[in-house]
């Protein structure tokens, strides 16, 4: 079902290794999401996936196709770049939204707004 057997052994090992490592990092990231106790802690978990996991898996893919098609082209780079650029947006917005909600609901748990002191009960 696949032409992966056409890979030379070194490449095959490298591809498999990178892929497994990437998958493992991703899994660890998700475990973090599963295990970490607070939202702000969990906010860190996906970054393992987006940095470690994505880079490793994409490297595996690049290597694989580069060897298979004998062309040194890495369009997976785009995935890495895009993920790196877009994830912060999500996380920043989510983190701030969470912060706002916490300040509104349980102000004692989170730091007040840097700058002027926030009212405990804004409404």
């Amino acid at each position, binding site marked *: 079902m696949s032409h992966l057997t056409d890979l030379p052994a070194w490449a095959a090992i490298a591809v498999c290794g990178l892929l497994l490592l990437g998958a493992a990092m*991703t899994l660890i990231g998700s475990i973090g999401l599963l295990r970490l106790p607070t*939202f702000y802690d969990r906010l860190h978990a996906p970054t393992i996936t987006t940095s470690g996991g*994505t880079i490793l898996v994409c490297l595996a893919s690049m290597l694989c196709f580069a060897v298979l098609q004998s062309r040194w082209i890495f369009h997976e780079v785009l995935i890495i770049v*895009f993920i790196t650029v877009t994830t912060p947006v999500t996380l920043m917005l989510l983190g701030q939204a*969470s912060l706002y909600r916490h300040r509104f609901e349980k102000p004692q748990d989170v730091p007040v707004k840097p700058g002027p002191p926030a009212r405990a009960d804004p409404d």
Partner: protein
Amino acid sequence: MTELAILWSILLAQVMLALAMAFALYRIVKGPHAQDRVLGLDTLYINAMLMLVAFGIRTANTVYFETALIIALLGFVSSIAFAKFLMRGEIIE
């Protein structure tokens, strides 16, 4: 032999990625905050994207790359829409 090893390791990688997706789903279901669910969904998207890349390696076919690329570039749009909704109660002001 190599063939078998390759297949097994890719399969293992895919199962790990699927498990990662399952954990993300757990976070979606468990919450407890809305932001946790959104974070879970975002992670689910990224895991799914990696799953696709892995699938591309497994089938040695590059046509699945576009989907992964689009997740990478545009997958965050729904997440930030959620985030903005949580923050402001509406997403376009």
